[in-house]
């Protein structure tokens, strides 16, 4: 039974205001910088082409549920054409001196920077994430990844993968909807730097920034066929994964689909990297810097509406400070501004799709049914579009679904611990292993915990930080292979 006063009920009863949040006038970014065509084709062999079967689908603005434009649905024949284009382009691209490949990547990075405002608005329209995040994180990091890997292209012999590392050939890359442009950059930049050619499939609900990237590749005069972009749904992705002309597959998405891909490729022994789900724990010790920790917890779970594979979706807090942390956390949750993603003051944007919203609602209902106590922000939600107010569950047992399953939404599950050993055991009590946070002012304890966490990334007194130079990826059922840094080259080299 829920004994906590629900924030929304309190707000309706007029007993609380926004708990001291300053009111802001709306400060919307103009969408006029983006001009969308009525329909988009597939980017194959250096130009946009109509799909073989002339099939298309709508992509929506999740903040309004209104269609933005139509994009092509690639058939098996279209995927085949894309792979063939990549195969034709592969020898010359691989033979190009690394310094020349580098210059293409530097160009791409620069053009992304020059078009950053347009890209940020486009991404926010198609994805629903706040403009503050696309402007400050997604787009600059995408440019940063191309710039970082550009510098590797002529230094591969010094990367520790042998004196003459070779590209794999043609790589098939499938990316998710939560960071569409950034994931495209994570996939394409290292693959191109190492001399591979690519067929990229963006997510069904967020294809537009990848198509804008195709335009940027043209602007950079990248040779035709070096990058091909095929839009579609899961069937298109399956056609790409199963194509015999592919030499390597890189996938970011759900653990379930990753499992299927690994099974499917098992017979061929094809090189594969998988970046899958997570159930990250943010561990807060009683000597943590609390102001920073509260911000880190908020950022860990509400950044990008919680649509983050490494989200800090479990909070493990030392029981001696649990009351204080929860009090401050609820106050901070109530201050989060949920709404128009194009408003520069917005903290939490729209849920990306109706399907994802249904998934979040289903798991939240399960949390309540299993006996956890729900606290949901009293913030008003827009009438149209897909929205879910920031939510914190307490009284969560380790066996609850909300403690075990990836929710991929703005929902935090809070548990407590007494000793560092217990914190580590609870953090590791998951089949995933993508990321964790540790909050403490005691460096020796932080490193002791970091050594014992089964996770690919550990943030100490921080959360959700990303950098082109820093390897990212999971252990256990969060997948294998790394993206970013020197480690990110390995996936694309025949080593």
């Amino acid at each position, binding site marked *: 039974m829920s004994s906590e006063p629900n924030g929304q009920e309190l707000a309706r009863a007029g007993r609380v205001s926004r708990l001291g949040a300053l009111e802001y006038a709306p400060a919307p970014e103009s969408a006029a910088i983006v001009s969308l065509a009525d329909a988009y084709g597939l980017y194959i062999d250096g130009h946009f082409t109509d799909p073989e079967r002339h099939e298309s689908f709508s992509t929506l603005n999740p903040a309004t549920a209104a269609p933005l434009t139509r994009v092509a649905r690639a058939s098996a024949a279209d995927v085949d054409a894309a792979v063939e284009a990549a195969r034709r382009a592969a020898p010359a691209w691989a033979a190009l001196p690394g310094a020349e490949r580098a210059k293409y990547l530097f160009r791409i990075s620069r053009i992304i920077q020059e078009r950053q405002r347009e890209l940020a608005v486009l991404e926010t329209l198609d994805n629903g994430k706040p403009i503050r995040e696309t402007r400050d994180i997604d787009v600059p990091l995408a440019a*940063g990844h191309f710039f970082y890997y550009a510098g590797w292209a002529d230094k591969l012999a010094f990367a*520790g993968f*042998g004196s003459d590392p070779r590209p794999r050939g043609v790589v098939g890359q499938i990316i998710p909807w939560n960071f569409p442009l950034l994931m495209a950059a994570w996939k394409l930049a290292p693959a191109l730097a190492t001399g591979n050619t690519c067929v990229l499939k963006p997510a069904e609900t967020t294809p537009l920034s990848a198509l804008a990237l195709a335009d940027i590749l043209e602007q950079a005069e990248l040779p035709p066929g070096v990058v091909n972009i095929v839009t579609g749904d899961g069937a298109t992705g399956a056609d790409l994964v199963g194509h015999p002309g592919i030499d390597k597959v890189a996938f970011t998405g759900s*653990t379930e689909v*990753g*499992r*299927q891909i*690994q*099974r499917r490729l*098992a*017979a*061929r*022994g094809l090189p594969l990297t*998988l970046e*899958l789900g997570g159930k990250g724990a943010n561990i807060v010790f009683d000597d943590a810097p609390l102001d920073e920790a509260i911000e880190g917890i908020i950022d860990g779970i509400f950044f990008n509406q919680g649509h983050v594979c490494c989200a800090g979706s479990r909070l493990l807090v030392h029981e001696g400070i649990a009351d204080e942390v929860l009090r401050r956390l609820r106050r901070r949750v109530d201050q989060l501004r949920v709404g128009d993603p194009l408003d520069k003051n917005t903290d939490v944007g729209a849920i990306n799709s109706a399907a994802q919203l249904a998934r979040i609602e289903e798991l939240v209902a399960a949390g309540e049914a299993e006996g956890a106590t729900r606290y949901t922000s009293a913030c008003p939600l827009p009438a149209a579009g897909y929205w879910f107010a920031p939510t914190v569950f307490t009284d969560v047992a380790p066996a609850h679904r909300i403690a075990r399953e990836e929710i991929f939404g703005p929902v935090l599950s809070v548990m407590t611990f007494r000793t560092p050993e217990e914190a580590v055991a609870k953090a590791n009590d998951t*089949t995933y292993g993508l990321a964790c946070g540790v909050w403490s002012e005691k*460096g020796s304890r*932080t*490193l002791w915990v*970091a050594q014992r*966490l089964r*996770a*690919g*990334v*550990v*943030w*100490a*007194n*921080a959360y959700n*930080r990303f*950098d082109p*130079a*820093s*390897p*990212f*990826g*999971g*252990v*256990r*059922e*969060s*997948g*294998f292979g*790394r993206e970013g*840094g*020197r*480690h990110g080259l*390995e996936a694309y080299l025949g*080593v």
Partner: protein
Amino acid sequence: MSERLDVRKTYKLVIGGAFVRSESGRAYAVAGADGAFLANAARASRKDVRDAVRAAQAAQPAWAAHSALLRGQVLYRLAEMAEARAVELGDQVARAEGVDAGAARASVARGIDRLVWYAGWADKVGQVLGGANDVAGPFFNFSIPVPVGVVGVVAPADSSFEGLVDALVAPLVTGNAVVVLASEHRPVPAVLLGEMSATADLEAGLVNVLTGRLDELGPVLAAHEAVDGLDLTGATDPAALAALAAHSLTRVLHAGPPATPEGGLRRLRAFVDTTTVWHTVGA
């Protein structure tokens, strides 16, 4: 004057540091390359595989928590044990593989040298595969290789000692525990190496050696959820085993790289993950 009747050894399984017959009570006759009877070996069951995985799972964290220097010294000790029994190993390799005594001795010597080579990697792997990352922000950011956990090894069918050393020792060096399915028809050197590991300060459960039928044991090992890495060098049906391993996202080495320095480094890389730590910098 009658010829002395030889005392024949039954080669037992190595599970959790104990030398046991299969819980199934089964054994099979191992023939030499010439077809003549060589020895009896235990024929492990599915349950033996599960017991071995559980033993490996229990032993692995403490092994990984040791200093890299200590892991290197323990593996060097294993090389000392192998050197002391090199004549016996050479004899068994010769009979199993049907090569002459000189070739067998040379092969064993290469295997022992390879073991020493790996032992020396223990406290260098972190420097070579990890390092500091220059991120834009007030962080000290570093990456370290971490063991995947339990590695299942389908030992090479043909290279009963020399090839086995590569497959067995590479995952051990970086802090993994190992369950080896020995070459089905040439299992004796693998069991000997298992015996040596018990006297080389390798804690119980770190090296488990199973003998028996690969078609029976391989799928159980590959599909086991607690097996985090799988070396299919000696598998007769690697595609089927790799498909089973996909269920729990197991890291799979489809074919053994060559026994060169670069090949060895590839083996070391195959069964480590990378953990990257961001630590804030501030006064």
